[in-house]
């Protein structure tokens, strides 16, 4: 009829969702870049203390991890409430540390065997007695390079927890 057709009554245009996956991809890229595939499932509490005299750890292939802490709630019935040692993915007594460390060392390439470092990831509230036992075993196994893993921060904050 006329050149000016009546516009349809005031409908708000639908919100474009084309940018929603962009936001999610940004989060995804952040996680892909900043994180590492989890090595072992932790069955012990492991809140590391803070320290400022720290050095960055070497290559991961020269590291052996030992976790010490109280068992998580799911494992407390079985292992009690005192600090225990986790080697690999299971909780073991202290005398297994010697064999574990030797096995891990023999699995490394020949030329880096003497550079092996043991990363001790100990929960802040664990007692030192267990750590002393582990260090005795490490000395016996001649695994003398040791790193007390800690997060970067003010160490005085450790004592206020």
């Amino acid at each position: 009829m006329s050149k000016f057709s009546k516009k349809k009554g005031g409908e708000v245009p639908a919100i474009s969702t084309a940018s929603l996956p962009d936001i999610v991809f940004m989060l995804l890229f952040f996680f892909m870049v900043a994180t590492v595939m989890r090595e072992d499932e932790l069955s012990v509490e492991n809140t590391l203390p803070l320290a400022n005299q720290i050095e960055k750890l070497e290559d991961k292939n020269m590291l052996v991890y030992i976790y010490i802490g109280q068992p998580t709630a799911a494992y407390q019935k079985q292992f009690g409430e005192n600090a225990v040692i986790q080697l690999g993915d299971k909780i073991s007594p202290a005398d297994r540390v010697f064999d574990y460390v030797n096995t891990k060392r023999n699995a490394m390439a020949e030329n880096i065997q003497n550079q092996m470092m043991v990363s001790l990831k100990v929960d802040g509230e664990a007692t030192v007695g267990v750590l002393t036992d582990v260090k005795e075993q490490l000395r016996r196994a001649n695994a003398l390079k040791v790193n007390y893993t800690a997060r970067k921060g003010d160490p005085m904050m450790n004592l206020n927890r």
Partner: protein
Amino acid sequence: MAKRAAPEVNAGSMADIAFLLLIFFLVTTTIEVDSGITSKLPPEQTDVTPPEVKKKNVFQVIVNSDNQLLVQEDVMDIKDLSLAAQDFLDNGGGTEPGNACSYCQGDRDPLSSDNPKKAVISLFNDRLATYDMYATVMNELVKAYNVLRDREAQSRYGEAYTSMVRRVADWPKEEREQPEYFELQDKIAKIADLYPRNLSEGEPVKN
């Protein structure tokens, strides 16, 4: 005939794929802590009797089961530990030619350590002390060594010791045959020799 406009791709399923991947990564990864205080354990003692150490060359630090700090048989607050250890290490009280310390800037108290190479810090922790306290004490003691090493490295080479260590650690692997790398390692070894980390853990030394 007018061309039909291509239908818009529905972006809703893109978001679903992205969420799936995100949830996968959230569940299987952790933000790894890869730094810490390095230390070298002493080799297992065979039959070697430990060398005689004069009492004044030993700085005794004891942590009891209540996380209380006892330094040289006196109660001390943790905040004062690092400075006390520095004063002990840097004392340079020795007067004989083989014993004196030319680079020490301490008080030269004859009742404290002779020189940093003979000074031993003895750390003993009760089995029931918490690891938080242990880590803090270790940190403060290592800080004393690092502060002194930084000072010496700065005055001799114009670069702090901790900065040199960091550079060595960050040196790219393919370039580790360069002479600068060996020079840097050399400097680090020399400075570490001036203030060797004689940190002994175990039974408190009684003499």
